[in-house]
């Protein structure tokens, strides 16, 4: 029986609701702050063919390439060989994964022994071994960043709940309770996806469900094509750059070519700088996700379900051996820095044809702050992500003090942090006035967070950017403020570099100040109302 358009609409919403429920339960049952408070995770529902049909829209960088992470698993272990309670694991940056910390779990879903689809979840794990607790800023290869799980098939009954895989992970990570707890939260999310999908088969039958899933892909594809159709054909080029690789003091440049041909969009990165020796390399899956996230954000309504129908329209490629498609075993931990410059470059290319839809560059730098300490025989690892100011648009100021576009981490409440990490006290958490670039609309403000270190033996590691190269304004807008980090130790100010790690002493005050977003349009045209409001609120001084 053919599916009516009403049934299609109803199943469509049900699948999206199911993926959202997966995401929210993953967060609510997870253990480490990076998942449960910062929400660095995502979830998806996938059809029998391995195409993502619905996703929990939590973290942009983890979406848009989930099918590419599943594909190598299915190539090795074909769908028809899968059994109940099997699952795939993959975090291999060189086989469809992103960085080591993002473990993808895929659960095949059976209904009366028939495979009806997969549920998927991904979470950032606080520690997976490697050369330093939580974050190894000086890793020279991917092996020093943590355990690699290549695309592999396991079974819950055989390998988990005290089985060999769980025991192996437990023995090789520094905070086993948190890691195993978070993986269990991922399994629970996948189980919920399976239950909801099975309930839809109960109601509509597996053929109808599969038909509805196909229709969902077609629907998103159609809506994205409709959005692209109105843009002028042509190739549009732009660049964006990171400060340096952390060793050589020279910018690393990403070059993009965005080609529109009728209702197809192709994004390539020819001429991008080669891969580097430090952890700034960006695996292909992250490059694809970042480019698609930018194009989707700029060109389409936010209510278009983000699934693999979008990927049919937008093709992304990057030369092998470049920063955006590195070869193994280059380290990749800080791939979000390059991913954000991918986002910036594609945005600047699109600014040439859709000036009213783009925004100026923001701080756009996912900055992790990792503070760890040995307490008795256990590690205690604090990891939090800081954002900054968003770039301004054609009719809005950039958002102040918010996470960067490709990540979407909430902060860890100070009162929660101080309960769990007795070696830290937050002394300020505030916006930085005047850090937004001027313009007809101004950029968003950067933020400051400062940590008083209460115990010796505390280690610090981070990676950040925009210490040297400012966020660029659009159409006359001014750049946003730069980021800085420093330690106040006994009245002395010790400047820190953007990609580094070091030991801290009791009494140190670690100060992180992130960058602001750039402005949009001529600052002379800013309305006096907006200016007066900013001055009265103390957000700008003039």
């Amino acid at each position, binding site marked *: 029986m053919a599916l009516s*358009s009403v049934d299609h609409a109803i199943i469509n919403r049900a699948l999206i609701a199911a993926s959202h429920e997966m995401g929210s339960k993953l967060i609510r*049952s997870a253990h480490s702050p990076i998942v449960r408070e910062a929400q660095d995770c995502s979830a998806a529902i996938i059809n029998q063919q391995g195409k993502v049909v619905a996703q929990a829209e939590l973290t942009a960088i983890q979406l848009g390439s989930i099918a590419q992470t599943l594909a190598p698993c299915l190539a090795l272990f074909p769908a028809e060989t899968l059994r109940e309670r099997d699952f795939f694991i993959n975090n291999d940056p060189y086989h469809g994964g992103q960085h080591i910390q993002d473990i993808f779990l895929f659960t095949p879903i059976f209904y009366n022994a028939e495979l009806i689809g997969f549920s998927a979840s991904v979470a950032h794990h606080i520690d997976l071994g490697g050369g330093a607790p939580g974050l190894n800023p000086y890793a020279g290869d991917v092996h020093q960043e943590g355990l690699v799980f290549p695309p592999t098939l396991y079974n819950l009954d055989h390998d988990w709940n005290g089985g060999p895989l769980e025991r192996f992970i437990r023995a090789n990570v520094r905070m086993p309770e948190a890691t195993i707890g978070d993986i269990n939260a991922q399994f629970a999310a996948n189980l919920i996806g399976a239950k909801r999908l099975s309930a839809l088969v109960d109601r509509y039958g597996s053929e109808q469900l599969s038909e509805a899933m196909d229709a969902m892909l077609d629907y998103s594809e159609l809506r994205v094509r409709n959005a692209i159709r109105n843009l002028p054909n042509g190739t549009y080029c732009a660049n964006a750059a990171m400060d340096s690789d952390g060793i050589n003091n020279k910018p690393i440049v990403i070059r993009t070519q965005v080609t529109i041909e009728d209702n197809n969009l192709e994004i390539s990165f020819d001429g991008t700088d080669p891969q580097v020796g430090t952890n700034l390399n960006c695996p292909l899956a992250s490059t694809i996700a970042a480019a698609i996230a930018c194009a989707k954000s700029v060109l389409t309504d936010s209510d278009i379900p983000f699934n693999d129908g979008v990927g049919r329209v937008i093709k992304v490629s990057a030369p092998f051996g470049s920063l955006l498609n590195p070869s193994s075993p280059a380290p990749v931990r800080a791939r979000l820095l390059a991913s954000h410059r991918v986002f910036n470059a594609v945005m600047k290319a699109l600014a040439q044809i859709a000036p009213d839809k783009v925004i100026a560059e923001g701080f756009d730098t996912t900055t992790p702050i990792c503070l760890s300490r040995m307490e008795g025989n256990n590690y205690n690892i604090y990891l939090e992500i800081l954002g900054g100011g968003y770039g301004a648009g054609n009719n809005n100021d950039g958002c102040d003090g918010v996470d960067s576009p490709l990540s979407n981490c909430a902060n860890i409440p100070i009162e929660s942090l101080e309960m769990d990490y007795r070696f830290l006290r937050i002394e300020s958490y505030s916006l930085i006035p005047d850090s937004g670039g001027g313009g007809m609309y101004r950029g968003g403000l950067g933020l400051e967070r400062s940590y008083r270190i209460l115990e010796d033996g505390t280690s610090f590691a981070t990676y950040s950017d925009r210490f040297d190269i400012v966020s660029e304004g659009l159409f006359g807008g001014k750049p946003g403020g730069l980021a800085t980090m420093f330690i106040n130790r006994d009245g002395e100010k010790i400047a820190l570099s953007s990609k580094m790690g070091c030991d801290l002493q009791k009494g140190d005050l670690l100060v992180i100040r992130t960058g602001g977003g750039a402005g949009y349009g001529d600052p002379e045209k800013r309305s006096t109302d907006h200016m007066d409001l900013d001055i009265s609120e103390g957000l700008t001084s003039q």
Partner: protein
Amino acid sequence: MRVGIEVGGTFTDLIVIDENIAHIAKVPSTPGQPDVGALNAIEAAGIDLKNVAELVHGSTVATNAVLERKGGHICVIVTKGMRDLFALQRHDRTSIYDLKYKKPKPIVNRQDVLEINERMDADGMIVQKLDQIELAELIKTITANQKYDAVAICLLNSYVNPEHEKEIASTIKQMAPSLSVTCSYNVSREFREYERASTTALSAYVQPIIEGYLNRFLKKLEIKGFTGRFSIMQSNGGRMPAYAMSKNAIAALYSGPAAGVVGATGIAGRIGYRDIITLDIGGTSTDVALIVNGTPDLTPLTKIDGLPVRTPVIDIATVGAGGGSIAWVDDGNLLRVGPESAGAYPGPASYGRGGELPTITDAHLIRGTLQASSFLGGTMKVDMEAARSSFKSMSAHLMMPIEELADSTIRIAEANIVRAIQQVSTERGRDPRDFVIVAFGGAGPLHAARVAEELDVSTVIIPPHAGVLSAVGLLMSDYVHFRARTERTRLVDSSVTSIINILSDLRTQTETYLISEGISEGLTFEHILEMRYVGQAFEVSVTLGEDLKHLTIDAVSKIFSEAHHRIFEFSKPPENPVEIVSYRVGARTKSAKFFTPKDGLDGKTERTPEPEFIEITEGGEQIQCQLMTRQLVSGEGSFGPILIEDGTSTIYVPPTWSALRDDANIIILKRGK
């Protein structure tokens, strides 16, 4: 004589019970001055206020003060370094692909957030003391020019040790006795500074408005001779005396939906149903809630206008599906309904108030499931042609006949409602098939049976006066007061005494408070623990029995593990450590006798015309349908399809359903023969 008055966005509803006879009145709301509408309703019902012993009131005054940003001018005192708490919020975005994302607008301006040097640590130890001179200077700044209506205080870690908040508050009282002060430890003594600060600031913000409104309203009532008890509905489903409410204004948010849930729970309980799903469909939205064993679930955190409110609220899921919700086609050719609504103005196209967009109400008119005669008992004119023409362009675009399109519109709206019910049932680990649906609001009874079918629920209950059930619920509500405290406690055998002590302490606090407000008879208590596995950040609510003396750790552990499993599909083996994060105690006193009023029927519904047959389009088919009034529904049961015009609402009984009316004038719909 007892009177309930519920002020909604469009209508003000009133129910009066006099010598066990119920009368109702429905008049248009007067948004600028809600008390005017309320007094109009009193007049319309012909009530002499001298004879009113009890008046219970629910209104949207607090909610509107926030939504329209018309609260008091407040300032907030925070710990040094935390001035931007309200601007930074939680640092995330609710829409990840929205490049022009705007955070919810803070309730307090940045220049009105003032810092003071002081600090507690996570154990409540003082790291830095308050400086008296600095404090005095700060208060002088605040009181200069009498700029502020109220002050809120929210300091870091004050939930553990509120000493500094208390000290600041008492110094303000000395220096500026007339300035109203709200402390965070009083409003929400729980961790997470942004949520607590937001709740405290909102409370201070709405307080002057609520207080002003209630005083004004009471004065008007008193002029007309009112000397009875005056109480106000809270969002937790209980009520408080009006004068107490003006001190705890934040509890008045969302009182309207809560009153409906209380009414539905009370009426279903009278005929033995204690596990119910409430379905309240109004003009702009649908509210649903799940009730297990006669007690609505409370949620500790809700939001208003994007801002968090940490005060227990009945756990209600809302979707933008109501009579005014607009049908549209997106650029992927998919038919959609809502969340945009035509609201009361301009309203549905058929209302002829300038609305031209197709709404659910228009779709019902086209299908025949609403008859022109059923609007406000036939007193309101509707324009069928306008309804049809509003669907014309979509009909051409989708190449679908208008009747079929109207029918599809309603199916989509009903699917959205089903999703809301799944949110409070399936997603909370409850199987909707174990529940009955209680439908009310103007349109609840019209959609309930089809929604029930989708969820495999086989019984639907329609209370009398379903269209004004919120007003009925006001008269059925108890006096309720909650207190909470965050104190992390490992769940081990040795902690049992401390758990009992904390709960008993909170219990004494709630009791003392209610007694101080003149309420003491027949108190009962609810003890709730917010619990989690050590390492998790979100808590699962665990409700204990009333008897604390025999509390054991094993029993608590078992209830927690079951609750965790129900929601998350897993629980851990018992050796995994569990902790209590927050304690919550509610005190309740049965204020109202259960009443079983007979219908006053208001004269106009006394006509009982013979049933007639009409043609409708429903469920993809054209069918012959009976049209009748509630009085014609028999105790033996009548089989659908039937459309029952019921004064304040319309009930639809689909073909495979039957309807019967019991002694209490409640209509029960059953699926199948």
